[in-house]
């Protein structure tokens, strides 16, 4: 019997001996250790409640998903450059009030070509995920030139300088090529004609604009966005981008499930 108990205790005995030095004054810290380990482990056990939260989130493929045109992409780059993401989100959450305020909640597929995503983290201004075609081009231009002309309470900075700045189209082929490198399916033709297409989108009824329709689809908005014919400004690009927000696919309208309360 004694021998049995000794055998049983042997591994333990070995353990104490090895650690006797380490833990000589262990009582001093034992409470901290105990509470630490136990709470950590306990919480780890409790997270097994997690399966209660289950929801289907099938990300559907959007066959009608189109790409940003070079002008829209240039506008997106300006949006990024000006740090608009600091105050505007582009992600409508699955909450009732958001859907009612901004429109159908955002689907993952909508930002699948967004390098990087511009979901944002703060709404000093409203969400922009469904801004496209909500206001006229003219409204956008005037609003960007001085937001307080249209919304007196606004705290948005003025972007009048965009109207004066000519858009750099030379770098657009490079940009599209880089985007293709990270997974956006631009064709060689799109890349080769990127600068021409950018010009064409702001010049309706020209040969160039035909190329835009040809490459990016008939639904592409080809307009003189800033109402200054003959000059392609950064304002053109930014407004073109703002007007495409939420317009890349019709899927959200078709697939809305009831949002969470």
């Amino acid at each position, binding site marked *: 019997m004694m021998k049995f108990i000794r055998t049983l205790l042997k591994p333990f005995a070995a353990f104490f001996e090895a650690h006797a030095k380490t833990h000589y004054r262990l*009582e*001093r*810290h034992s*409470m*901290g*250790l105990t509470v*630490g380990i136990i709470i*950590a482990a306990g*919480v*780890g056990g409790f997270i097994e409640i997690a399966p209660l*939260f289950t*929801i289907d989130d099938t*990300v559907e493929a959007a066959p009608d998903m189109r790409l940003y045109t070079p002008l829209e992409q240039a506008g997106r780059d300006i949006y*990024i*450059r*000006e*740090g*608009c*993401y*600091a105050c505007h989100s582009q*992600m409508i*959450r699955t*909450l009732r*009030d958001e859907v*009612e305020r901004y429109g159908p*909640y*955002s*689907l*993952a*597929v*909508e*930002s*699948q*070509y*967004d*390098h*990087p*995503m*511009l*979901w944002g983290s703060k*709404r*000093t*201004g409203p*969400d922009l995920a469904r801004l496209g075609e909500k206001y006229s081009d003219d409204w956008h231009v005037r609003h960007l030139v001085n*937001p307080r002309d249209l919304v007196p*309470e*606004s*705290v*948005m*900075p003025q972007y*009048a*300088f965009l109207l004066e700045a000519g858009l750099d189209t030379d*770098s657009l082929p*490079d*940009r599209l*090529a*880089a985007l293709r*490198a*990270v*997974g956006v399916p631009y064709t060689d033709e799109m890349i080769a004609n990127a600068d021409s297409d950018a010009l064409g989108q702001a010049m309706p009824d020209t040969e160039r604009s035909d190329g835009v329709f040809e490459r990016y689809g008939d639904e592409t908005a080809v307009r003189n966005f800033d109402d200054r014919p003959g000059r392609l400004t950064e304002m053109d690009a930014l407004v073109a981008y703002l007007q495409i927000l939420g317009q890349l696919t019709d899927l959200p309208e078709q697939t809305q499930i009831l949002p969470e309360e």
Partner: protein
Amino acid sequence: MMSNLTRAERANAMVIAGTGAFIGLVMAAAGRGDPMGAHGWIVLAFCGALFFVVGSAYEDPEPTQDRTASYYDDPTKVGILIALFWAVVGMGMGVWVASQLAWPDLRFDAAWSSFGRIRPVHTSGVIFGFGGNALIATSFHIMQRTCRARMPDQVTPWFVLLGFNLFCIVASSGYLMGVTQSKEYAEPEWYADLWLVVVWVVYFVLYIRTLARRNEPHIYVANWYYLAFILVVAVLHIVNNLAVPASLTGAKSYSAFAGVQDAMTQWWYGHNAVAFFLTSGFLGMLYYFLPKRAERPIYSYRLSILSFWGITFFYIWAGSHHLHYTALPHWVQTLGMTFSVMLLVPSWASAGNALMTLNGAWHKVRDDATLRFMMVAAVFYGLSTFEGSFMAIRPVNGLSHYTDWTVGHVHAGAMGWVALISFGSIYALAPVLWRRETIYSWKAVEWHFWLALAGTVIYVFAMWNSGITQGLMWRTYTESGTLAYSFTDTLVAMHPYYVARTFGGLLFLIGACIGAWNVVMTIRRMPSETPERDYPTSSESREPALPAAE
């Protein structure tokens, strides 16, 4: 300062600076007409200036004293001053951006001064400029002291410190020119990111080399925190900044990830940056300077180690709580929430450990504003980690997200925890470092403390109010079931809070300016002595430490 470098080291420094200047020149040439060109000139100027500073002192006599008999503190000193400079700049920018939200016309109607461009100057200025430099400077100090060994050489620490500041300068000047990736807290473009990787690897190697030279078998826990900070930030930085430049002659690049993948990566980075940049490193600071200042060993050393491993293991997946109710798959959100809640355990262990260390030294906290900085920092650490775990819970996040509550939470952490522990450490460090009897003006430290505390409290309360108000207004319905408030209504309601926030920030900024002034005056005006110790009482007269179980 140059006189401490050997001639060989001066030569090395000149080679490095020369190479940097050459790279700057190449960038300037290649990036003509692009912001990258402007950055090239900045790099050229920075490295050129260094080249000439070192070069002009090249022929000076070599150092004669035995260098192994002292710690190498020159980079620490410069780092502390740079950190204070960035504190004033970054917080100044903060006050400016805050006031732009209250008074939107408070800018010069120029492109560079819009909110979107100067906000990252503020965030990067305080996080990387102030926080980063404070971390680098204190880590140099702490690793040498706790290892009882001098750093292995004298050029590497300068490379790390100045290289990091070059990154900060390139980053913040870039924002003003519109060079940004639009990834929050990872805005700098590809070449700045690459440069930071180089600097960070050198930093890590420097740390490991110093540890390898240690004359003290034990590695003090602060070093573990600093090491985790360096190592994990490197991994996060590399993964999150994977991008393809549009061209090698331009600043623009596109993130390797898109949409939901990018969001996941971004907040995996973003939250771990909070964990390992804004927490781990500063905990290292806390675990060294707080016991040192209180002249009491840390309450439970075992707990400090335990919470270190806890933070390392728990933090990694918490990031997706930034994306509740979004298009991120639901289970990933839940994952983030779960781990964020669990994080409370190691976080509170650290905060509690710090406060318990002060048990029995409360009279010192009362009398010594420096120690009070650290004490309040620990309190805010506890508060903001609790708040963070709370806000990571889905329904709470549904209300708080996108509102100023998040901003308030971040500032409770950034001002209350990060800035206060840094200022406390700097006040504790300055007299030791410059061998001054004491800090120039204790009264000024008191003023700084109360201004900082008042500023933080005003700021955080204003943001809590505005955040919760706005969140509730957004989801208020009329009786007929329509939304009660337009977005503009909610914006108007924010105005008083934005004014209050600006005021709180201003108080904090004034405090920081006083602090910077005080440190400069300590260096310039205080009698230079070699005090036996900076600390008010001797360790012999310490009261016996309470058993940890108490």
